[in-house]
């Protein structure tokens, strides 16, 4: 197998060599060399041909042939791909190299050309330069030679002279210093010493030792004296300044900063004073200093010291102004915070009088300080502090008032539980109490704030208008927040109630919730009070003392009484409406239950007025009790009892009813029964059922009762009655009639509505034959007797 390919290769090689004749000898040689290198091992040689692709004597044909012979088709293909990739790589490499070389070549030619151009003009210039330089040199040499001798001499002499003078000075130094010390001319002394100091430093340990020691001694004395002078406050400022100045000059090594530090410690003294006073005030909380006292303390301790220090500093360092200002500012920040703290007593309402007093002191102080230090912008700081202090004061006063009012309202939630027996009229008491708080509180606030305005402190004058705005805005905010509170309070309780419906809580919150309608009524009444009495009064006072305002370019004043009034009127109306709705719903529920419960088609003959009537009266009484506490009685439109005694009234109503009943029984037979009814209605007074409620007892109760009766009518309309059922309704309505007439402002409405109820029952009755009026009368009387008896026993 191996020989066949060999022979085949040989034959191919021969063919190839015959074709490439020129290569023949080479290949023969190389094969010869290869075989010579590895004798007897042709396959090994062939293997070599495969590896020798990078060697010098690489033979393409042999490589090819051995490759073809030895590798499979797959291998060949792979090899092909590999080689193609390699060739490509080599190609691109080569290209790159060529390109780079070419580039270099081009740049090189460029450089050469440029060099050639530059060099061409240089030759002549160089020659000229050389000539000049040599000329200069010869001249300079000549001068040097001529002057050399004399100059040396002069220099020598000069040096000796100065040295002699210095030595003289140093030797004289102690003497001079002493002289100065005697005559207290410290400035001179320092100057001399300064002059000698460098020499003494250099030669102090050798030739001038004695001299140095002596002069140092003297200087030490001088320094001590100067320092003593600085420390004694008694010396005139000028002297101190001098002393420090000398010290500065004397010890330049100790820098200005060092001295500043000294000064700052001096300034810190007032700071301590400041802290002390504040500490005092905090430590003695039980008997706190009044702000005024505190201010006085501050003034004494701090401001005097400060003024002194500041003026001293100024004289000493005319240049150090900036630093002083900085330090002062820092200091004053502390000062003002402590001032503000002192203006905010922790407990109780601060009175404006004290505020005014302290503000006065402050303004005087600030003036004083400003005179000392005009650059620090103290008045601005002070104004800022005062402004914020006053703002806080106003805000606190108003929030105090607001919390008092809301507190009074909220405290109403609880009292009924325990003391309901001895506090008969919690609502009334609360109403009076809260009214008093609102009115008196507002007036107090105004009086208090007015003091601030009257005692016009310098600092306050500038923003008087803003202050007025502040006060007015305070009232505006107070009232708007009250409105929100009013509207939110019953609602909040309502939420509690609905939550309770789900969770079935115990009885204690229930009793509180029973109080919700009352609260609503109270708030409604309060709204009216604020609208009609409190706000006008406050407006009056405000107008009298807080005129002006509108400084901030607002188009409207901060306090708009008309707006507040309107808002309160609406709030009041809403609350009243809610109250009425709530109570009417309660009654309606009672009535509708009473109508829905029985089976009217199998009703037995009525023996008595039904129980729900009693319950209804109980509820109405409870409402009345609530309403009486809060609202005015109001005018009754019709005369109640003046024109008719009780029995007469009832008989009269009986007759009218009988008329109607008989009419309806007749109309039963007539087809146009409805027309009949319409005609009957024509002759009756048209009744307004749903009128707008007023803030009177009668009006509120009437509205509630009207709503309730209307519900009664609607419920009856949904039922179907047998004769007895109808008679029962007739009896109930008849029983309700008189007591209800007592309660409402317009009897006609009650009559009308009760007639409607019984007419509705008649319409919905299969057999509407009414009870005899005598029977009705008898049953009602019996019920009345029983009720009064019950009342009597309950009273006992």
């Amino acid at each position, binding site marked *: 197998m191996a020989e066949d390919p060999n022979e085949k290769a040989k034959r191919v090689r021969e063919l190839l060599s015959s074709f490439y004749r020129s290569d023949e000898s080479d290949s023969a040689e190389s094969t010869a060399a290869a075989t010579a290198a590895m004798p007897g091992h042709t396959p090994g040689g062939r293997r070599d041909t495969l590896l020798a692709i990078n060697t010098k004597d690489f033979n393409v044909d042999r490589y090819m042939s051995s490759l073809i012979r030895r590798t499979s088709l797959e291998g060949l293909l792979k090899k092909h791909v590999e080689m193609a990739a390699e060739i490509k790589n080599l190609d691109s490499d080569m290209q790159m190299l060529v390109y780079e070389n070419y580039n270099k070549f081009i740049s090189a030619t460029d450089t050469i050309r440029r060099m050639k151009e530059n060099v061409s003009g240089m030759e002549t210039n160089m020659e000229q330069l050389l000539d000049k330089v040599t000329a200069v040199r010869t001249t300079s040499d000549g001068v040097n030679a001529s002057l050399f001798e004399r100059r040396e001499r002069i220099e020598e002499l000069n040096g000796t002279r100065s040295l002699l003078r210095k030595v003289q000075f140093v030797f004289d130094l102690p003497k001079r210093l002493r002289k100065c010390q005697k005559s207290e001319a410290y400035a001179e002394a320092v100057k001399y010493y300064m002059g000698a100091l460098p020499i003494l430093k250099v030669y102090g340990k050798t030739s001038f030792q004695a001299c140095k020691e002596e002069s140092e001694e003297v200087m030490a004395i001088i320094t001590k004296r100067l320092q003593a002078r600085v420390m004694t406050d008694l010396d005139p400022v000028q002297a101190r300044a001098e002393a420090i100045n000398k010290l500065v000059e004397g010890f330049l090594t100790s820098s200005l900063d060092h001295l500043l530090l000294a000064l700052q410690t001096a300034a810190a003294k007032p700071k301590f004073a400041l802290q002390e006073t504040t500490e005092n005030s905090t430590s003695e909380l039980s008997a706190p200093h009044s702000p005024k006292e505190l201010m006085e303390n501050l003034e004494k301790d701090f401001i005097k010291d400060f003024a002194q220090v500041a003026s001293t500093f100024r004289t000493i360092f005319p240049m150090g102004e900036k630093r002083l200002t900085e330090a002062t500012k820092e200091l004053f920040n502390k000062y003002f915070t402590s001032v503000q703290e002192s203006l905010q007593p922790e407990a109780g309402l601060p009175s404006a009088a004290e505020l005014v007093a302290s503000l006065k002191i402050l303004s005087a102080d600030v003036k004083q300080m400003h005179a000392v230090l005009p650059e620090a912008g103290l008045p601005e700081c002070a104004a800022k502090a005062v402004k914020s202090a006053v703002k806080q004061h106003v805000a606190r006063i108003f929030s105090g008032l607001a919390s008092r009012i809301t507190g009074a309202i909220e405290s109403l939630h609880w009292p009924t539980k325990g003391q309901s027996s001895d506090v008969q009229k919690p609502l009334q008491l609360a109403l009076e109490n809260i009214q008093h708080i609102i009115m008196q509180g507002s007036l107090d606030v105004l009086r208090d704030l007015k003091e601030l305005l009257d005692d016009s402190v310098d600092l306050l004058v500038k923003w008087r208008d803003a202050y007025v705005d502040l006060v007015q805005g305070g009232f505006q905010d107070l009232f708007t927040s009250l409105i929100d509170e009013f*509207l939110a309070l019953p609602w909040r309780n309502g939420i509690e109630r*609905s939550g309770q*419906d789900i969770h079935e809580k115990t009885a204690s919150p229930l009793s509180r919730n029973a109080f919700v309608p009352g609260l609503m009524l109270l708030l409604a009444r309060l709204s009216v009070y604020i609208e009609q009495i409190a706000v006008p009064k406050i407006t009056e006072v405000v107008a009298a003392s807080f005129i002006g305002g509108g400084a901030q370019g607002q188009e409207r004043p901060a306090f708009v009484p008309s707006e507040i009034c*309107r808002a309160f009127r*609406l*709030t009041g109306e*809403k609350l009243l409406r809610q109250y009425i*709705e709530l109570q009417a*719903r309660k009654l*309606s*529920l009672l009535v509708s239950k009473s109508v829905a419960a029985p089976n009217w*088609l199998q009703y037995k003959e009525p023996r008595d007025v039904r129980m729900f009537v009693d319950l209804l009266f109980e509820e109405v009484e409870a409402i009345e009790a609530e309403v009486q506490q809060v609202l005015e009685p109001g005018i009754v439109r019709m005369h109640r009892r003046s024109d008719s005694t009780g029995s007469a009234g009832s008989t009269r109503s009986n007759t009218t009813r009988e008329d109607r009943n008989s009419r309806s029984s007749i109309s*039963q037979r007539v*087809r*146009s029964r*409805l027309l009949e*009814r*319409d005609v009957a*209605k*024509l002759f*009756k007074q*048209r*009744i307004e*059922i*749903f009128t707008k409620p007023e803030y009177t007892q009668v009006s509120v109760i009437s509205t509630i009762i009207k*709503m309730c009766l*209307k*519900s009664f009518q*609607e419920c009856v*309309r949904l039922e*179907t009655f047998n004769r007895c059922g109808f008679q029962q309704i007739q009896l109930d309505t008849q029983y309700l009639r008189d007591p209800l007439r007592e309660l409402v402002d317009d009897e006609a409405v009650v009559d009308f509505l009760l007639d409607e109820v019984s007419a509705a029952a008649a*319409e*919905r*009755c*299969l057999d509407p034959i009414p009870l005899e009026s005598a029977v009705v009368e008898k049953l009602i009387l019996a019920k009345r007797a029983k009720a009064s008896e019950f009342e009597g026993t309950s009273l006992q």
Partner: protein
Amino acid sequence: MQANMHTNVSYGVKYQARCITAVRADTHRTRFLVGTLSLREENEVHVIQLSDNGADLRCEGLYTHQPEIWDLASCPFDALMISTVYASGGEYRASIWKIPERSKGFNTPQLQQIVQLDGHKDIVKSTLWWPTGKHNQLVSIDEENLYVWALDASEKSAKVQGHISAGRLQTMSAGCWDPHDVTSVATACGSSIKCWDLRSMKQANTIEQAHAVQVRDIDYNPNVPDIMVSAGDDSKIRVWDLRNSGMPLLELPGHSHWTWRVRYNPKYQELVLSAGTDSVVNLWHVSTPSSTEDKLRSTSGSPRSPLDPLLRSHHEHEDSVYEVLQCQCKIYIAKWRALCLDKDIGEIGTGVAWSSYDPWIFASLSYDGRVLIDSVPHAIRKKLSQGASK
């Protein structure tokens, strides 16, 4: 076109009446059905039609329906088919009726009973037809139960397909079939609103304490799913988003006594009509509830900032706004009073229905049997049409 004429059109039924409905299948004419409620007389169903010029209301047919009619509903696909809820001898029933072809005879013809929906034991409240298009399903509601019926008009039979019991002490008073999801029916259930899934016959959704007392009526928004308006004995009208039923989107003050009916306009969802026992019909403008922006806008007034919560709780600002509306009502009541020789306040609005033909017209029926046709004022129409075209 004929708007000005509408305001004074009325029609009287000689008995008391509680229910009026528009003939939904009749899209060419404005027709209404009125059922009377007379305990002791023979009751009638009146077919009344508004003339094309809108000037008068004619009786097109009068049919005897022996027992008193408590509720009336017209079939959405057959103008001659109606369902009634009626009571006789204290028992409440529901039936499907066919209006006989020849209606103008000397004797008032009888309604032909197709089928009676048997099975109710409590007081039946209403029947609900499939909300849109032709379908044989029907729902009837009594105080505690809800039945789904498959009606076969030709066979004259109805089978119970499903039954839901709301449970004891859950007085259902009204219902509404969701027009956006026909598998859901909502009912006013005591003081809450409940949605029932007709596939599983289970409660799907609920709004607890929708009103402080009994919920009287509910209606789905015709254009936006999951929005619903409700009215109750606390006199309030509330708009709800069923996906977020904790708080109403909107509350309208409603009426001075119970609010009995509340209805969306079938075309313009901004218009809501309500009727109450205080004899007043109110037309409300309810802004498109895009669920988050529950702003309330006036019928003719300026749009208010939705951010101001005060405006929602007080309605002082709306006083003038509602005035427009009330004014209209007053005018219309005044006119109506003039009819009654200025004496009667009567009871409008135990029934209210929008016309199916002209969305601007609405009718109201008072307990004493008076039908009144009114229409939305021009200014509002214009505004709404513009809004719709935008």
